[in-house]
């Protein structure tokens, strides 16, 4: 592969959307109301739509005959580079919204920078995605406020979810080797520079939602290097089921 760094860089972005889209897809038909059900499905659809553009581009760069589906569904767990945050399970609607919110704020900031990429393909995908992600961010932020402000029970549940998922936020701003090369080439986004704006925005919304900002300084990492939580294998078992059971077929 001529440009392994670009390929890995694209996967780093796309895998986040794939795994989060897959998680949201699990909820279809099981939401707390018809309206939230439709909204979660919609976010899943947006993310998977973005994923297709990224992987189609990655497949072109790989030049080894693999398709978008091969890349999406036929890697080993250690070869997925998504952050740990997005693979966390739908424990309840609070966790689903907390995960979404903590990712959306990052996703929006990242895409805003990616739109300026010298790589025209990535810039075009970012431009299209940012409109969708701005809606995701509004939706999840509104729910954080609603659940924080709503009842005692909802306040306590969403606070617990935020506390539990907080440990996965720092990883969003870690740079991989591919990141560093791509930033130097003007293709990639320097995620370390997004960190302050991220926590400022997240903290402001938590405050508005009458929630406290977790104080823990201990963070988890590994996803970007392909070392995942125990949840990941089960998620992939679903995602890869058909491709693994019936190899080399068209659907």
């Amino acid at each position, binding site marked *: 592969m001529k440009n392994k760094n670009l390929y890995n860089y694209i996967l780093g972005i796309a895998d986040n959307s794939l795994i989060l889209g*897959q998680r949201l*897809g*699990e909820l*279809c*038909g*099981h*939401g*707390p*109301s*018809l*309206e*939230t*059900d*439709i909204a979660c*499905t*919609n976010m*899943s*659809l947006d993310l*998977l*739509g973005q*994923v*297709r553009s990224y*992987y189609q581009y990655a497949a072109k760069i790989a030049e080894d005959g693999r398709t*978008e*589906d091969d890349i*999406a*569904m036929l890697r080993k767990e250690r070869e997925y580079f998504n952050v740990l945050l997005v693979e966390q399970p739908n424990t*309840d*609607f609070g966790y689903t919204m907390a995960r979404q919110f903590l990712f959306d704020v990052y996703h929006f900031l990242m895409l805003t920078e990616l739109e300026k990429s010298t790589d025209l393909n990535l810039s075009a995908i970012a431009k299209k995605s940012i409109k969708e992600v701005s809606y995701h961010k509004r939706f999840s932020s509104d729910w954080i*406020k*609603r*659940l924080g*402000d*709503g*009842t005692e*029970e*909802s306040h306590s*549940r969403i606070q617990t979810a935020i506390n539990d998922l907080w440990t996965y936020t720092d990883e969003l701003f870690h740079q991989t080797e591919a990141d560093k090369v791509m930033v130097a080439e003007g293709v990639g986004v320097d995620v370390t520079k997004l960190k302050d704006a991220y926590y400022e925005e997240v903290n402001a919304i938590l405050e508005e939602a009458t929630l406290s900002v977790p104080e823990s300084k201990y963070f988890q990492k590994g996803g970007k290097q392909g070392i995942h939580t125990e949840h990941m294998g089960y998620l992939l078992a*679903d*995602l890869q*089921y*058909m*491709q693994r059971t*019936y190899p080399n*077929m*068209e*659907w």
Partner: protein
Amino acid sequence: MSEEQIKNLEEQFEARIARDEKIEPKDWMPEKYRQTHIRQISQHAHSEIVGMLPEGNWITRAPSLRRKVALLAKVQDEAGHGLYLYSACETLGISRDELYEQLHSGKAKYSSIFNYPTVTWADIGAIGWLVDGAAIINQVPLCSTSFGPYARAMVRVCKEESFHQRQGYEIMLKLCNGTPEQKEMAQDALNRWWWPSLMMLGPTDDMSVHTEQSMKWKLKRKTNDELRQQFIDQTVPQADILGLTIPDSDLKWNEERQSYDFGEIDWDEFWQVVKGHGPMNNARMKARVGAWERGEWVRDAAMAHAEKQQERKNKQVV
């Protein structure tokens, strides 16, 4: 109102329907008309919502990204159909919560077809092709039914269903043009979904209790048996193109009737499923009730937040 006045209103009402005028929510209507429409429209809405489950079962396992996205979009369409059918029903003076309560308590029915399991990917194709195909045959006449909100909702529903049906057929086509294993998967799905799809068109005419009144109110244009024949005549050639065999040894073209003769439907199975004892009745209801109960704190929070917001606004005004 005197009996004579009511009779007079009823006559005018029936005359309006006969003239193909639409009945709107605020118009006077006989109580039976209201109740029949609440029953039918809510049953239809419930079917859309419960119908999300068997197909949703394959979202996380769809074989390609393209199929996954298409399936998500399809199931989302169904949620949308549910949403506007519930809204149409609410215009008749019943709340969505009451309608859910009827579904969860088992008082309201939904289409029995969704009480069968989706066990392979081909089932997603078969549902699109056969189940949506049968649904369209049932629903197209409803686009010109007498109750305005229902008729208008159905125009949109039918457009989307017809897209879903083509999508389902395309899944089948791909399987049938694929490997022998894929074709076998398609045949197996047809074997399992064929008879339940025929049952979707309802009991035979001599067993159907609502037909006459429904015809008058344009909730029905053709009888169940006519619709079933139409479905079979339309579907058999499609199976031929796929190279699949309809699992009915009595199926054969009748030159005289210019229609297919077909075998006996297992009505015992039909009634067993209708009465709540199909393979998935229990699981479907548990999934619906479970989602509703798990979501209670979320809905409560949304209500409480909205009320607090309103209070804060009121205080500002004062």
